[in-house]
């Protein structure tokens, strides 16, 4: 793939990733976030994080199934979008829910299970974002880099659990995320099990007689 095409793909994700943010800012400026804009901002940024995480996780299966290797170019940008919205989600909680109070943010985060799980997801995404550059991939080496980036699975699972845990009664939406994520993870497991096994060492010849 040409350098030029890769740049375009990056731009494409960047622009589309920015659309929800732009609409959030626009609606906020026009007081169109409904009766509880604080809650709307927190919920929507969280939702965007989960959506981008899910899209990130969908890239590899889609690439392997279709054979379109260029899809890999989408993965890093999608992952960074997820991280960006995750940070925004935390900032909304910190400012709108906790009134910029560091102490009340920390006590709440340590006291509430759903916040512990949610923070875990975000913290796990941090090293992934930092090591997302080409230079870092080279420095770590493909094998280590891939191992590290399997943390994305844990982050996505934590993210969905975090959502599920705070729903009052109607768990249908978190269950949709859980179902999609399960399919994407199950696909990986199946591929792992079906990987070509190293040829078994020939059995030592047993001397007959």
């Amino acid at each position, binding site marked *: 793939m040409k350098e030029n095409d890769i740049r*375009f793909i990056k*731009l*494409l994700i960047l*622009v*589309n990733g920015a*659309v*929800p943010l732009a*609409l959030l800012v626009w*609606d906020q400026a026009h007081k*169109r*976030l*409904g*009766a*509880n804009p*604080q*809650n*709307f901002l927190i919920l*929507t940024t969280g*939702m965007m994080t989960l959506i981008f995480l899910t899209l990130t996780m969908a890239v590899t299966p889609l690439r392997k199934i279709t054979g379109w290797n260029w899809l890999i170019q989408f993965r890093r940008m999608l992952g960074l979008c997820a991280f960006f919205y995750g940070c925004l989600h935390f900032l909304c909680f910190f400012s709108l*829910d906790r*009134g910029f109070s560091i102490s009340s943010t920390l006590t*709440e985060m340590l*006291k*509430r*299970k*759903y916040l512990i799980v949610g923070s875990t997801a975000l913290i796990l995404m941090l090293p992934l974002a930092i090591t997302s550059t080409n230079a870092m991939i080279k420095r770590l080496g493909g094998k280590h880099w891939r191992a590290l980036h399997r943390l994305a699975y844990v982050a996505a699972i934590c993210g969905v659990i975090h959502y599920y*845990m*705070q729903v*009052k*009664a*109607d768990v249908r939406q978190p269950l949709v995320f859980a179902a999609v994520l399960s399919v994407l993870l199950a696909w990986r497991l199946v591929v792992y099990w079906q990987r070509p096994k190293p040829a078994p060492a020939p059995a030592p010849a047993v001397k007959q007689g």
Partner: protein
Amino acid sequence: MKDANKIAGSEITPPAVYFNRRNFIRAGILAASAAATGVVYRKLNRVATGEIKTAQLEGVISASAATNAVPGFRVDEAETSLEDISHYNNFYEFSTDKEGVASAAADFDTKGWRVSVEGLVNKPQVFDLDDLLKISPPEERIYRMRCVEGWSMVIPWAGFSLSKLLDVVEPASGAKFVAFETLLDPRRMPGQRSDVLNWPYVEGLRMDEAMHPLTLLASGIYGRALPPQDGAPIRLVTPWKYGFKGIKSIVKIKLVATQPRTTWSEYASNEYGFYANVNPHVDHPRWSQATEQRIGESGRRPTLMFNGYEEQVGHLYAGMDLRKNF
């Protein structure tokens, strides 16, 4: 003969045009995908708005003019707008999405509504709504409303104290609790088609709570008949308790001897109690109840004991362990 495969120099697209066309296509892809993303976002994030056009109630006694007003009948805080009150609330019978209730309830028809008042009473009666509303003229009551989810409003209700209805049916001496029931009709209440809660919605009060003057049988908001999404045609309001105690669209009121089952405490008894008094010191197991987001304000405000009605209702719970009886 001419070589068919040979392309005349004049037919080759000049590089400048070729690259322009490519940029043009790319710009198109960018714009189209961004627009599609925007449309999907808008579909997923609808915000409810709309006007309330229910009938104006007649003869509402304004809270400031009432002569028999009990302290607490009128909260001196900015009222939440009718738009917000009617487009942001829980009513699972229609939708589990607070901003989806208004549209889902828009066609709810309450014609021919009847309320049965029965059980341990001397004069059980099935009231036509009109007869029920004639028991006492509607009074304006400006109450705080605190949802268990951590948001709150100030709502100018119209209605009369439940005690006035109970006086008409004359509770028998054995009556210790009042049980309430919402309409069960999945055709008219689409939320009841899913089993997210155990329908019909039921609630209950202890007799002294039910007889307290603050306990309101409400039929209106802002001087208008209740819109369907807020519990038309008649609902309960207990301002010192979490909002879910305020059962909506009531069809049955039954006086009983033992504590009745209530929907949310049955759904999760460790999270929602029978009393459900607003209490900033007893957290919901999953979140804090110390503060609340007042709708229409920017910061969170501290939640008050009994939602600010301690003076009026505190004595009802004297000596009770409110951590156990949450």
